[in-house]
């Protein structure tokens, strides 16, 4: 199947904004890139449930608890949509989970930071989901059909996530001196990791070439990061939060906010497994995956038993 002609035809389709569907011809590199990116995205949704799940039992009101539960359930759903999209490329869900557990597959670095207090739940929704949305809105136009459709569905659900987080922050900034300090402290801890979610600067990101050519990625890391900063500064100012970056300044010429240097050493340190929660996140996932094995075994046994019964009736 692989020859010049099919590769050219494939690229032509991409160039004319056509979508690639599971049974269409695609170069191996395209398939591999997508499997890596979509499975990493799926793992991020699922691992991302942990820092927030930690606060369900301690939510300050019934309303807050219901909202948090609904948000976390959405994230589980996002993981499922994305695992499904990756499966259409020929990788099984078992394999993906195994790759997560062995460390071969990554998930978003942001979830290796802890949610220390209730203000963190506000900061996560507002900043982390906010950054994710900027990326996901752009990915709605990705060239692979199943991935693009998953993104459209996810984006519809995400906007409540960001709004509920911002509402928490706004409420705390309206509260006591201690509450205001908590909100600012959470802002200080989550701002920089949120900016790092967009990945290395364009000049330093090695995978971008093919991903852009194949229209898997539609906008560069720096472009997306800038969009997020430009949106968020006003929201922070409105409720009296300070961006923990003295170089944040509106630039009349570029019509964007300038910002200070991102600490990439910190980024690489956490990616390599030395963040505050890397081990905890993975141990937790493996533990509950293994402890749930009996449920899967019981369902499989029930299925076999039912099939046997049906055979008896027919026979």
């Amino acid at each position, binding site marked *: 199947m692989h020859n010049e002609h099919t590769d050219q035809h494939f690229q032509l389709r991409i160039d004319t904004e056509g979508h690639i*569907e599971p*049974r*269409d*011809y695609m170069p191996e590199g395209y398939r591999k890139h997508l499997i890596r990116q979509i499975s990493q995205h799926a793992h991020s949704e699922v691992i991302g449930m942990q820092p927030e799940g930690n606060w369900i039992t301690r939510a300050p009101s019934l309303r807050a608890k219901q909202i948090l539960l*609904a948000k976390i*359930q*959405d994230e589980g*759903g996002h993981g*499922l*949509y994305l695992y*499904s999209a990756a*499966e259409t490329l020929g990788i*099984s*869900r*078992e394999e993906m*989970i*195994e790759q997560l*557990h*062995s460390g071969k597959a990554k998930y978003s670095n942001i979830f290796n930071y802890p949610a220390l207090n209730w203000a963190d739940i506000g900061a996560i929704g507002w900043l982390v989901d906010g950054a994710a949305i900027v990326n996901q809105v752009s990915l709605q136009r990705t060239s692979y059909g199943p991935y693009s*459709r*998953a993104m459209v*569905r996810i984006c519809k*659900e995400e906007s409540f996530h960001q709004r509920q987080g911002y509402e928490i922050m706004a409420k705390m900034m309206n509260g006591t001196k201690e509450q205001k300090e908590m909100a600012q402290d959470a802002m200080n801890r989550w701002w920089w990791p949120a900016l790092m979610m967009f990945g290395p600067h364009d000049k330093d990101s090695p995978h971008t070439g093919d991903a852009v050519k194949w229209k898997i990625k539609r906008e560069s890391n720096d472009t997306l990061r800038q969009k997020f900063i430009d949106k968020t500064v006003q929201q922070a100012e409105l409720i009296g939060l300070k961006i923990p970056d003295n170089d944040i300044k509106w630039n009349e010429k570029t019509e964007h906010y300038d910002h200070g240097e991102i600490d990439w050493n910190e980024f690489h340190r956490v990616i390599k497994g030395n963040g505050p929660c890397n081990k905890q996140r993975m141990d937790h996932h*493996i533990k509950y*995956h*293994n402890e749930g*094995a009996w449920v*899967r*075994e019981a*369902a*499989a046994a*029930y*299925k076999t038993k*039912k099939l046997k019964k049906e055979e008896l009736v027919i026979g």
Partner: protein
Amino acid sequence: MKTTNDTQFDLWEVFIQSKPGLPHIHAGNVHASDAKMALQNARDTYTRRGEGTSIWVVPSANIRASNPDDHEMLFDPSNEKMFRHPTFYTMPEGAKNI
């Protein structure tokens, strides 16, 4: 760190009807060990915000799809039969309600 050797079950395609009277439209898929579990998972995964009034689930293995390579053979001939479209016909000037 060996994890349990397990199955994630069969794949089921999910079709949702958003309102009575409308067709069921493909929404995505779920893993499930039987139809009952597939319906429950589909409900939890695809209809958390009033997206549906009815769900169909079909084992993915039972779906037969046309081959993308046959695209021209299957779909191009219909482009030549413009007389199947109402705009093909010339109506006498002044004809109304047709």
